[in-house]
């Protein structure tokens, strides 16, 4: 069976060998997985889960173990929505947007809207690390409040634009920009404090 025939007939995708699925583009794998192709889905999972897990883990500010539950939730949400994937953005970006919603839901716990809980603790005083505690940039990001952390990870780490962040979080682009500047200031304070402590 040729690749094009395999993609055209999703019901036969389950028998595509791993070596074949590995060479398929994301969109072809998505088409095959929509038809119930398990091999295609597993290939998508193996290809994109490491990045998704890292992204979700950073947004949550938690360990990979906690983030794995959110990753599972993300894939369970993403699978029925695969039919809506139009290949206009990269599959990774599309998946991360679903992962972000799953992570926000995980953090929300009863709050009505993402924007309500994301920025409610942002004015709280930042707990600077203890003098003998070394904090790298990863730990500094994890120490940020959820709102600062989410926007900083999305913009400065993942490269989302303010318009994309605003769309994902249901806020104005100006709010995203303002929160990013505050997040950077807090992160800088965390890191500078450390530099002084290290000196």
């Amino acid at each position: 069976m040729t690749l094009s025939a395999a993609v055209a007939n999703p019901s036969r995708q389950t028998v595509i060998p791993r070596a074949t699925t590995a060479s398929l583009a994301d969109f072809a794998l998505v088409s095959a997985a929509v038809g119930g192709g398990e091999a295609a889905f597993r290939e998508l999972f193996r290809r994109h889960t490491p990045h998704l897990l890292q992204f979700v883990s950073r947004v949550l500010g938690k360990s990979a173990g906690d983030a794995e539950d959110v990753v599972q939730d993300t894939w369970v949400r993403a699978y029925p929505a695969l039919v809506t994937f139009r290949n206009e953005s990269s599959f990774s970006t599309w998946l991360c947007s679903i992962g972000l919603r799953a992570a926000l839901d995980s953090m929300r716990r009863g709050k009505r809207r993402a924007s309500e809980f994301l920025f409610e603790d942002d004015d709280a005083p930042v707990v600077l690390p203890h003098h003998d505690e070394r904090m790298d940039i990863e730990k500094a990001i994890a120490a940020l409040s959820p709102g600062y952390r989410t926007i900083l990870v999305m913009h400065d780490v993942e490269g989302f634009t303010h318009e994309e962040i605003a769309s994902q979080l249901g806020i104005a682009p100006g709010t995203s920009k303002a929160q990013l500047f505050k997040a950077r200031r807090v992160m800088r304070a965390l890191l500078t404090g450390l530099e002084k402590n290290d000196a």
Partner: protein
Amino acid sequence: MHNEDQELREHELAALAALPRELQPGDLLEERVVRALRSAGHLGDARRVKQPWMQVSLRIAAAAALFIGGVATGQYMMTRSDTNALDNAATIRAANELPTGSTMQHMKAVKSDEKVVAEREMWL
């Protein structure tokens, strides 16, 4: 000055760029996800991929069953209303054939008169 504070510095950019972009999941996560999708009926054996012609046939059969069911129900309802109408007519007819209250009173009066006549004949 404010903008300079807001922009990332070179060493911060470098630190952010050096952050790992991937984190390897545990060995069991893939199986957990596949199992969750299977139990939700999305993937593997639990998913029944129906052929288009089969779906069309099923839809036609369902529509035909609905139509036949509707016709049968309509006929049943009509038959039932006819039977009820016949029953009602029979009941009315039977009621007309039975003696009415005034007829009974009339018969009682006649019997009473006959009794009076018989008693008078006894005395005479």
